């Protein structure tokens, strides 16, 4: 599903963010990506989201070479991946319902089908009664769920969640993880979750990839350690 081969990223200002990353994530996997600030987590997301092009190597998602996408094709690619942003990125002048609907409108889905789907996903994230509220009328957890609803509305093959529990208390964080697990099970969506929250990583055990200073320093299966090099050669 996601395959990074020898990927390096150097920004224009000379900052090296990733060094020679090799990574394979299979369909319907649920993976944590952990690491300190500046370890390259955000860059990894930007590469997968087509915001940035790799300086070296290939980023392949669902058979598409993301780095080679032309500017005009990027939007079509993005419809296959849902991203839950740390800063939510909700449209402030649209209601929750309209925000989720917008993600479907861009694909020119039939209006009736689109509305039906919006109701479905709002139900799934338990936000139906807030559908006519504007983002600034919602709590952090509610906004987070609205963003998740928007991200999964298109039934993406991959869901990338950037610190989805960053602004929430432990109880709310647990709810979000359970929601993501539900999506992972029910929609068979591959989930990549970037997090700082070691408590969550320990509580809800999943495959965990640790980044540090632009290198993958560990790739742990639910049970124990797997060095990323050996894991890669096994694939």
């Amino acid at each position: 599903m996601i395959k990074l081969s020898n990927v390096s990223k150097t920004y224009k200002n000379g900052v090296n963010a990733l060094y020679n990353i090799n990574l394979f994530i299979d369909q319907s996997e649920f993976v944590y990506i952990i690491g300190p600030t500046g370890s390259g987590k955000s860059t990894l997301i930007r590469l997968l989201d087509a915001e940035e092009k790799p300086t070296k190597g290939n980023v392949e998602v669902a058979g598409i070479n993301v780095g080679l996408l032309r500017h005009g094709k990027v939007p079509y690619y993005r419809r296959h991946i849902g991203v839950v942003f740390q800063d939510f990125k909700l449209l402030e002048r649209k209601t929750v319902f309209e925000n989720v609907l917008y993600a479907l409108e861009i694909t020119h889905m039939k209006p009736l089908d689109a509305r039906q789907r919006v109701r479905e996903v709002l139900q799934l994230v338990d936000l139906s009664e807030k559908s006519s509220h504007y983002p600034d009328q919602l709590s952090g957890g509610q906004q987070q769920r609205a963003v998740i609803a928007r991200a999964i509305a298109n039934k993406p093959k991959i869901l990338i969640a950037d610190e989805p529990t960053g602004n929430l208390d432990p109880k709310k964080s647990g709810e979000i993880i359970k929601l993501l697990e539900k999506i992972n099970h029910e929609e068979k969506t591959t989930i990549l979750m970037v997090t700082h929250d070691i408590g969550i990583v320990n509580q809800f055990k999943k495959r965990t990839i640790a980044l540090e200073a632009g290198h993958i320093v560990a790739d742990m299966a639910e049970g124990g350690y797997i060095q990323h090099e050996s894991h890669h050669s096994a694939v």
Partner: protein
Amino acid sequence: MNRIIRPFKEGFVGLIRHLAMSFSSIMAVMITLTIVSLFVMLTVNIQEITKSIEAKVQIHVQIKNDVELPGIGELERSIRAMDGVVEVVFSDKDKELNQFIDAYGEEGKIFEMYRGEKNPLRNAFIIEVEDANTIDSISKRVERLDGIESVNYGGVNAIKLVDILNSVRDSGFILVGFLGFLALFLIANTIKMSIHSRIHEISIMRTIGATNGFIRAPFVIEGILIGFLGAIAPVLISIFGYQYLYNAMGGILLSNLFILRPVFPFVYYLSYLLVLLGISVGLFGSYISVTRYLRVYR
């Protein structure tokens, strides 16, 4: 169907939700189009006046007394054959005297005694030329013909006036062109400002997977609406203002020599022009501005 209706709906909503910004854009369009309208009125009327003066510029040719009727016919034919001559009218001594007397009104009566054999005036031709600029060369050519006593034309002054008006009109055209350009710049800038405040919105739309066309369409519709709304006041000012001025002045400026352009259909054409200008400026302004911001994000 939804693809067509959606941008319109979103465009309207955008216009209303950003009312303050929309209002300043509409004002910019309004003021500029009003100025453009004033200059178009001025330019068109100068053109009209020039034309009416040019039409009245005539050459007055006096024929020597020893030229008899067949010779006069020959002269008339050779003048008619010249390039740029529209009309040649023969006016005999008696007619000339009548006109002379008429021109002096009451006092002209003392010239009544010159009627008949004692008439000191000459037979004459009155020549109308196509273009005032050729009046000088035609006069010289007529003067060289045999049997011509003298050639006068309705004043070097008239021609100078035509020249002056022509240059006023030309600078009017340049000014209108310049103002149009200024309007485009001003409006593009206002729209750019209103879009700048929504740069965040645009980036989110692109992140979610909206294509450039999808993001741009409502903004462009909004721009067109702003242009259209901005054109309404100038159109009304033009139609009613021009009508009022025209009627107040009786269709002329100072004297019969300066005839103004009739109100209809001129104001309609002017209105079309203003609406078209407003809409296209709104369209291009918003299109260019949004596209610039879309390029920022991958």
